[in-house]
């Protein structure tokens, strides 16, 4: 240490005198500016890592002393900071300097400040706690009159800024949008873009100002605002359709070379700007004819202007083509675009070829003939040395697959699969092959062979859905029963053959599939007795390389086979070995097998043959235990408390201090913040896919919500086993499909071919086999969007699922202890389905305060709520049966007619909540009004068209523009050719949300004709908010606890309540009524609420009251929903 002090001391005179000291150490003598240079030179001169470490440690300890010494000037500090950055960059810990970096940014002059900011941006990350200390500095600098300081502050804000401090600087940055200097305006826009990225809700109110930025006279500011628009339009394109004109004009100006020459890059005007604009137009014009029409001209111009002389023009061209194909089609442009694609595909430059293939992949959906044009190029690309090109080609082939070319394409994919080693590629490709095979498989043998290949290559990396789907397909089968049996038989045969091969290792997943199939369907095979199959399975069980999860599958298979077997030596041996297994799960399985084995009758009824799809139902309430429980209770045993209740009690004893900070909101997503709040149990994590959890799940029986079929006397069999139906199919010869394909490809008469064209011919043959069925006249089945009859393995019409989705799953649960570890995602669905059914029974178990019980019933009753866009003055439509009042007064004559047409609606609507009637547009002859009905499963929009004139209206047609976030379906029977005079008709549309959002608009138009004269078109739009899609979710507290743990996305925030509702009950009431949440339970000052976003995304809310602060904690399976709900909650709590 002493030498450091010495150094610092000796450095001082040098500083003061501005002359290097004569006798000091070398380092101190050198001017500060070259110290870093010296350090770097020192490091590069070293020979070993160890020496470097020593040097840097020395340097760091010097620096540590220097930065904390009170004598260090800011100038020296700046120099130290630069060296610190260098050390940190080399991977050494310089955390002691972070605080000094912030100080430097705070105190220094321009240059020092800048170094401070630089250091901060390099050292800290977005959630670093020290960052809070920077906020004040940023605020100060934003208010500075010095341009450079403002610039620096804006830059740091757009680099790193704590999300929760945004409100502190937001107004200042908004002001900067009006600044006179364009660089400030531009940086302000970029800072706001950053805010929009990290906290979109906070900048919602400044959307108007972005429009100003878009019209800014400086190109840089305008270009910066495009980033924000690109993002916002991506989220909700319907809200910005009106800007299309502006974007088109801007693009026109750019393409026309109206920008300053500075913006040219290789004499192309602002290429990156053009790309951005084309992307925005693509989003706007998608599926929207009117908007698309606006851009045809400029796209044509861009295509024409992009002379092919430079890389970057290709980039523009590519975007242009993509846009042309994405928007509402225009044949002229499509033709030109197709030509451009040709240029890309045929280009010798590989990058362009790659993009050409990419473009073909998009285009192929609209224009399959284009692939035919380029078929030879595509074939060449299949054998391209670059694996990336090859993969892109396969992607393209995947899109053009149909029943005729499936074998060739899948073969090509498998070839590629065998070569590649990257996990990502394997996962991706395996999924595609499985999908194609399931859809288009030509025959059973091929299907099983292909799936075998998929399982053995994809093995343990593939998506778990693949084996699940495969097994389901086998189990559920399709319409033809004989076909089913053949497929199963073939699968069993091929697996037995595979298991006979010595010294081959199959992936665990494949073995699991095999064991399930063998367990279920070995009875189909004559050749081998169940004993032989069991022997094979036993051999596998004894193999050390097999995971315990797979072993559980294997034992399950053995269990299923045991009742069919005559002798049971091996089974007994197995029981012996595994009842002493160290693995609890295996041991349990073995014990189960043992007990069942002792009771053959029970075993046979429990494990019937070919019943994997039949439902097995047990007594969920465990009522047969009642007498036992009563007995125990009478003998003084403690009553059972659910887990969460025990937890709660424990916590309430411990809870003394609240360590949570107030006033700050924090939001986290993912698994980091997954502790549960005080009121909710901390049980084991139920989501997760690992073998361990899976096993735990299955070993505990899930019995809720299952009908009674197990009586006190045991299983009550419902169905006869249908052995009579079985038809034994002759075994299919196991010939390799691939060989078959080879034959077709190479089938040719060699005598007629010249040797040099042999290769060429082969390619052509391949082409013809690949592109078969792609012609314009043949029915093409692209992307599987339309299910045609060519589907080989169409699943049986889902009778089982309509039985309420629950039964299929329930069966899974009951069997799970014998069959296999079930898929966890299944279980989540299962919970949800289950929860709804149970709500009525369960609800009464919990004590709610009397007041809340009152309000409970309120939510279920029709609650007429005036949303912001409804006219509050209009009397409620169905408040009573007086129909005359509802219609706008100017057309009282029409009201009589309304009564009739609405009569049918009435029945339906009174059951549900609905909004008031609101007029959306009108003219002399007609008026259009709408209202919303909040049905349980969707939002029903009703448009009432009333004819105010005395004339007949013809061809009244209402069209709703497709909106990105919604799924809109027209209710049947709504289109009317003629609307009589003074009559009212209604159109009903079911609206469902596809992606959460806060607000969206539904726009559309109505057109009609008056007595053969001109056609009139009226446009209208209706606002929809997230609340329109929120419904209460009725669940019990236990289920709440389970669900809570299974959700990963959470958001926590403190909200101040207005005085009027500072008490828990009133706050609850507000939430319940305004947001339609369901009150699950109230525990002291905490409340649990649940709701679901239609169709079925649940969201849970836990809240606690501290004085007048409400701590809200949301969790959901959807990552964005909590944010949106929080926003609504805040609005409600503040608003009332």
């Amino acid at each position, binding site marked *: 240490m002493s030498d450091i002090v010495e150094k610092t001391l000796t450095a001082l005179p040098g500083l003061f005198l501005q002359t290097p000291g004569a006798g000091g150490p070398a380092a101190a003598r050198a001017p*500060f*500016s070259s*110290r*870093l*240079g010296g350090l*770097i030179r020192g490091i*590069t001169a070293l020979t070993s890592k160890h020496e470097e470490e020593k040097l840097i440690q020395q340097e760091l300890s010097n620096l540590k002393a220097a930065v904390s010494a009170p004598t260090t000037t800011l100038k020296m500090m*700046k*120099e130290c900071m*630069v060296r610190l*950055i*260098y050390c940190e960059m080399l*991977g050494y810990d310089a955390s002691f300097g972070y605080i000094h970096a912030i100080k430097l940014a705070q105190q220094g002059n*321009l*240059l020092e400040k*800048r170094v401070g900011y*630089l250091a901060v*941006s*390099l050292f800290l*990350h*977005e959630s670093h706690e020290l960052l809070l200390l920077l906020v004040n500095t940023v605020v100060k600098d934003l208010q500075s009159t010095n341009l*450079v300081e403002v*610039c*620096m502050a804006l*830059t740091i804000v*757009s*680099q790193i800024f704590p999300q929760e401090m945004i409100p502190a600087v937001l107004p200042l940055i908004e002001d900067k949008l009006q600044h006179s200097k364009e*660089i400030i305006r531009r940086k302000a826009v*970029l800072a706001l873009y950053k805010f929009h990225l990290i906290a979109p809700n906070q900048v919602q109110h400044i959307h108007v100002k972005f429009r100003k930025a878009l019209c800014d006279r400086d*190109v*840089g500011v305008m*270009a910066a605002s495009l*980033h924000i628009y*690109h993002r916002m339009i991506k989220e909700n394109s319907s809200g910005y359709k009106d800007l299309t004109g502006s974007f088109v004009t801007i693009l026109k100006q750019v393409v026309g070379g109206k920008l300053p020459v*500075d913006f*040219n*890059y290789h004499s192309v005007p*602002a*290429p*990156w*700007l053009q*790309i*951005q604009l084309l992307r925005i137009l693509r989003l706007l014009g998608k599926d929207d004819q009117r908007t698309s029409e606006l851009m045809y001209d400029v796209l044509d111009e861009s295509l024409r202007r992009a002379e092919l002389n430079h*890389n*970057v023009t290709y*980039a523009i061209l590519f*975007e242009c083509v993509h846009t042309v194909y994405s928007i509402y089609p225009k044949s002229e442009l499509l033709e030109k675009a197709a030509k451009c694609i040709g240029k890309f595909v045929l280009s010798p430059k*590989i*990058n362009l*070829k790659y*993009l050409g293939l990419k473009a073909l992949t998009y285009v192929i959906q609209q224009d399959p003939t284009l692939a035919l044009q380029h078929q030879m190029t595509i074939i060449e690309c299949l054998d391209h040395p*670059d694996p*990336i*090109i090859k*993969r892109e080609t396969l992607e393209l082939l995947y899109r053009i697959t149909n029943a005729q070319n499936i074998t060739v394409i899948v073969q090509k994919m498998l070839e590629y699969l065998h070569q590649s080693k*990257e*996990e*990502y*590629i394997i996962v*991706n490709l395996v999924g595609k092959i499985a999908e194609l095979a399931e859809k288009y498989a030509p025959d059973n043998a091929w299907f099983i062979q292909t799936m075998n290949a998929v399982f053995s290559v994809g093995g343990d990396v593939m998506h778990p859905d693949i084996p699940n789907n495969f097994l389901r397909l086998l189990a559920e089968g399709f319409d033809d029963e004989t076909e089913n049996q053949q497929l199963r038989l073939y699968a069993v045969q091929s697996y037995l053959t595979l298991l006979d091969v010595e010294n081959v290792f199959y992936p665990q997943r494949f073995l699991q599939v095999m064991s399930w199939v063998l367990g279920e369907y070995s009875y189909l095979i004559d050749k081998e007795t169940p004993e032989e199959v069991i022997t094979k399975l036993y051999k596998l069980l004894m193999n050390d390389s097999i995971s315990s999860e797979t072993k559980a599958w294997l034992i399950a298979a053995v269990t299923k086979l045991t009742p069919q077997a005559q002798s049971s030596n091996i089974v007994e041996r197995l029981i012996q070995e595994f009842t002493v297994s160290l693995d609890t799960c295996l041991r349990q399985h073995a014990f189960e097998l043992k007990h069942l084995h002792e009771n053959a009758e029970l075993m046979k009824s429990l494990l019937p043959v070919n019943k994997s799809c039949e439902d097995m139902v047990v007594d969920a309430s465990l009522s047969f235990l009642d007498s036992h429980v009563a007995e125990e209770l009478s003998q003084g045993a403690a009553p059972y408390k659910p887990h969460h209740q025990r937890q709660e009690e424990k916590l309430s004893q411990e809870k003394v201090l609240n360590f949570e900070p107030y006033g700050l909101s924090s939001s986290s997503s993912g698994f980091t913040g997954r502790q549960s709040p005080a009121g909710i149990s901390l049980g084991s994590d139920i989501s997760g896919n690992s073998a361990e959890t899976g096993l735990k799940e299955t070993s505990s029986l899930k019995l809720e919500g299952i009908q009674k079929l197990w009586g006190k006397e045991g299983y009550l069999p419902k169905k006869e086993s249908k052995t009579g139906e079985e038809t034994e199919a002759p075994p299919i010869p196991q010939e390799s499909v691939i060989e078959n394909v080879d034959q077709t490809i190479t089938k040719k008469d060699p005598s007629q071919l010249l040797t040099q064209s042999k290769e060429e011919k082969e390619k052509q043959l391949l082409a013809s086999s690949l592109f078969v069925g792609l012609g314009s006249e043949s029915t093409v089945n692209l992307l599987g969007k339309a299910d045609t009859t060519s589907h080989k393995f169409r699943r049986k019409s889902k009778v089982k699922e309509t039985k309420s989705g629950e039964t299929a799953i329930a069966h899974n649960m009951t069997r799970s202890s014998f069959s296999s570890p079930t898929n966890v995602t299944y279980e989540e669905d299962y919970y949800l389905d289950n929860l709804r059914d149970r709500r009525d029974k369960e609800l009464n178990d919990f004590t709610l305060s009397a007041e809340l019980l009152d309000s409970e019933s309120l939510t279920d009753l029709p609650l007429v709520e005036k949303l912001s866009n409804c006219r509050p003055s209009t009397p409620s439509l169905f408040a009573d049966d007086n129909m005359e009042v509802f219609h706008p007064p100017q057309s009282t004559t029409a009201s009589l007619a309304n009564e009739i047409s609405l009569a049918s609606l009435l029945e339906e609507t009174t059951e549900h909540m609905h909004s008031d009637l609101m007029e959306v547009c009108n003219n002399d002859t007609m008026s259009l009004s709408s209202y919303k009905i909040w049905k349980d499963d969707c939002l029903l929009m009703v448009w009432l068209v009333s004819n105010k004139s005395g004339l007949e209206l013809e061809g009244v047609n209402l069209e709703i523009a497709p909106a990105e976030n919604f799924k809109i379906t027209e209710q049947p029977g709504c289109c009317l050719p003629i609307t009589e005079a003074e009559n009212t008709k209604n159109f009903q549309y079911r609206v469902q949300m596809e992606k959460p959002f806060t607000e969206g608009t539904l726009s559309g138009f109505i057109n009609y004709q008056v007595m053969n004269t001109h056609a009139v078109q009226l446009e209208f739009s209706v606002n929809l908010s997230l609340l329109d899609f929120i419904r209460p979710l009725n669940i019990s507290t236990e289920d709440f606890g389970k669900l809570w743990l299974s959700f990963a996305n959470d958001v926590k925030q403190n909200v101040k309540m207005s005085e009027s509702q500072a008490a828990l009950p009133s706050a609850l009431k507000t939430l319940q009524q305004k947001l339609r949440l369901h009150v699950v339970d109230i525990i002291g000052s905490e409340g649990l609420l649940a709701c679901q976003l239609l169709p079925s995304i649940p969201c849970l809310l836990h809240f606690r009251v501290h004085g007048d602060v409400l701590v809200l904690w949301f969790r959901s399976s959807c990552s964005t929903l909590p944010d949106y709900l929080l926003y609504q909650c805040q609005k409600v709590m503040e608003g009332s």
Partner: protein
Amino acid sequence: MIQAILVFNNHGKPRLVRFYQRFPEEIQQQIVRETFHLVLKRDDNICNFLEGGSLIGGSDYKLIYRHYATLYFVFCVDSSESELGILDLIQVFVETLDKCFENVCELDLIFHMDKGGLSAAPARAVSAVKNINLPEMPRNINIGDLSIKVPNLSQFV
């Protein structure tokens, strides 16, 4: 959006690494290593795009790289960027370095960390990236929008 900029030499030694998404240091090193192995396998005469897969953010991301003499410049971007656009951006980036150092070479990146250019390079790159797709980006880098006002600002030390 650009997620990361990696510059490393033919032996995989990182020369400039900047992530725009926070990763722990070990993960960063792993990403650099894996990227290097991915890129190294590829000949010079095949395409400059790589679909990243598991590396940074999953299937939405791709790697776009260029190879200059001893250095690889790799940009990791998401699907909102144009491939060819980024390829040209790398070109611009390298041209700018070239202007800063007059005939840039790997040694410049090592020895001239102290020249404003490089100790600020990551920061500069950020601002470049933030303004990316802006036509004036080349202009900005050359002049440096701040250095107009503060003449010797680029000289930090």
